[in-house]
């Protein structure tokens, strides 16, 4: 057992031990796919400039970030049914100074993000001791309380009809499109970094077993608050953008209905994979709005049917299905399973235990 010494001896400067551990294949295919999608989205306004489709895509960008924010919070084991309200906090924190103090949107939008972060972290503190079902119940109630307090603000918040007259950022929808697109890219990049770095590993560790996590120095409360703060920052950011885009902050956009919509996107796409929420938005928002607009009234039935199919057959959502198929194909080709993930990545995550 003399090897123990080598393992436990202070390692000196890690830089000295430079020899790289087994080189792993970078996922060029994944990076390529993301790149192609980004280029297509960046060029799309040339084709659909000013049309309704553009509006749909702006909406989709907002919901991609907000649902991914939900998922970022969920990797630490917190199923946050107040996500719509966090978005609302961002929206109102931007709308109120914009309407009553005539602040510039370039100030109020970041302000919305900060407000959502602050509110989120304050709330996360007491909620960090609730788990799974009780956390979900608590946050569902919390979302109601937040929206309740906002609408109780009298004339300042415009009560239940909402606060209108939020000054627009641009007169041209294409500009909105690019701003939303940019915000989405930056937010997604940040959330990707968050999840696939050591921070994300901590979150996933806390989600799997808070006791084991604590025994190796990963504090549950600290990390859960961090997850909420991080997730709600981008939620608030896009919430603030959304209200400037719409020109109005109305409580109905941020209530339980909105939250359930977000949860549907995430669950249909796949709660356990980073791209799940984006795929969910694509399937439940973009495709129906592009191709099935005449079916508007029946759409909830289709959504419900998709949810049921997923619940019964694909608990990991559509992305889970894609991975399954990919694995099969790779196995057929005789390469034995998916290629190794990039450095430091941890894919397996299970919110709640």
């Amino acid at each position, binding site marked *: 057992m003399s090897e123990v*010494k080598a393992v436990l001896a202070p390692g000196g400067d890690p830089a000295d*031990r430079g020899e790289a*551990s087994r080189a792993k294949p970078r996922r060029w295919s994944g990076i390529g796919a993301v790149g192609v999608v980004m280029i297509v989205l960046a060029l799309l306004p040339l084709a659909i400039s000013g049309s309704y489709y553009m509006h749909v895509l702006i909406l989709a960008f907002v919901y991609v970030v907000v649902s991914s924010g939900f998922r970022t919070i969920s990797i630490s084991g917190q199923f946050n049914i107040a996500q719509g309200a966090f978005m609302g906090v961002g929206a109102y924190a931007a709308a109120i100074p914009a309407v009553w103090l005539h602040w510039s949107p370039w100030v109020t939008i970041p302000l919305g993000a900060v407000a959502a972060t602050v509110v989120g972290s304050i709330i996360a503190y007491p909620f960090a001791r609730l788990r799974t079902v009780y956390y979900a119940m608590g946050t569902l109630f919390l979302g109601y309380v937040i929206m309740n307090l906002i609408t109780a603000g009298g004339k300042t918040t415009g009560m239940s009809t909402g606060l209108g007259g939020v000054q627009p950022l641009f007169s041209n929808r294409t500009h909105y499109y690019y701003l939303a697109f940019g915000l989405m890219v930056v937010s997604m990049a940040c959330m990707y970094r968050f999840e696939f770095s050591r921070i994300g590993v901590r979150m996933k560790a806390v989600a799997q077993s808070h006791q084991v996590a*604590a025994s190796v120095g990963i*504090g*549950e409360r600290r990390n859960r608050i961090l997850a909420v703060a991080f997730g709600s920052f981008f939620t608030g950011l896009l919430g603030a953008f959304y209200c400037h885009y719409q020109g109005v902050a109305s409580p109905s956009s941020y209530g339980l209905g909105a939250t359930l919509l977000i949860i549907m996107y995430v669950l249909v796409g796949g709660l356990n994979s980073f791209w799940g929420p984006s795929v969910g938005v694509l399937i439940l928002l973009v495709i129906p709005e592009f191709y099935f607009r005449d079916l508007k009234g029946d759409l909830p039935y289709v959504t419900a049917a998709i949810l049921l199919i997923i619940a019964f057959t694909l608990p990991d959502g559509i992305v889970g299905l894609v991975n399954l198929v990919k694995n099969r194909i790779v196995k057929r080709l005789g390469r034995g399973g998916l290629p190794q993930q990039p450095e430091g990545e941890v894919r397996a995550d299970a919110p709640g235990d």
Partner: protein
Amino acid sequence: MLLEIKGLTKRFGGLKAVGDFDIHVDEGEIVGLIGPNGAGKSTVFNLITGVLPVTSGTNMFRDRDITRSQPDQVAALGIGRTFQLNPLFPEFTVLQNVTSSFQLHPCSSLFDIFFGTPKYRRNERFIREKAHEILSLVGLSKEANDLARNLAHGHQKMLGVARALATKPTLLLLDEPLAGMNPSEIQYSLDAIRGMRDNGITVLIVEHNMQILSLCDRVVVISFGEKICEGLPSEVRANSEVISAYFGADYVC
């Protein structure tokens, strides 16, 4: 003195789980805390590590009061521990279980982690290497890329030890390391524990398997939450109170 516990008491409602319990551990020792099932051994561990709040008494670690510390703070001070049941992150691979446990040394700041600075990458590379070393030490190299939940029971326990080692503890608390192991695994574990001590880790073991006695420098026997005797393994073996606690009073001649 590394760990010094005085007058430790824990009540659950009216029930006294641990009463006025004293134990101290010196640097470089292997101390056994033995006792029959339900004697309060694991409760003592949970009280030391802050998992359960202490009713009264003081826990000192390296002359620092850790009585009211949270579990993660206790771990950060250098007390590693294993668990009797489910000692791992089931959805991580074996390797990830160990790398994720390197939270304390070397430490990257949130800034470094988030922006993936060269320092962070260096640290991560270093951690992975160390993790592989630890895994080969506990005999889990082959399983490094398996999901932890698919491991056999004995391997899960060893992984628990590997995780605890990854925190680079000064004091290691082992909670029933031999429970559910077969004889060859037991022998391997005993060797491994001795190896840890030889390399400067102080070990406190909770166990009800008497085979652990051969390993210990000193043994404390607990029954119904109270210390009934303390001494060298040979003394404890001969102590009639211990025998009666284990086998009932009738067996004492």
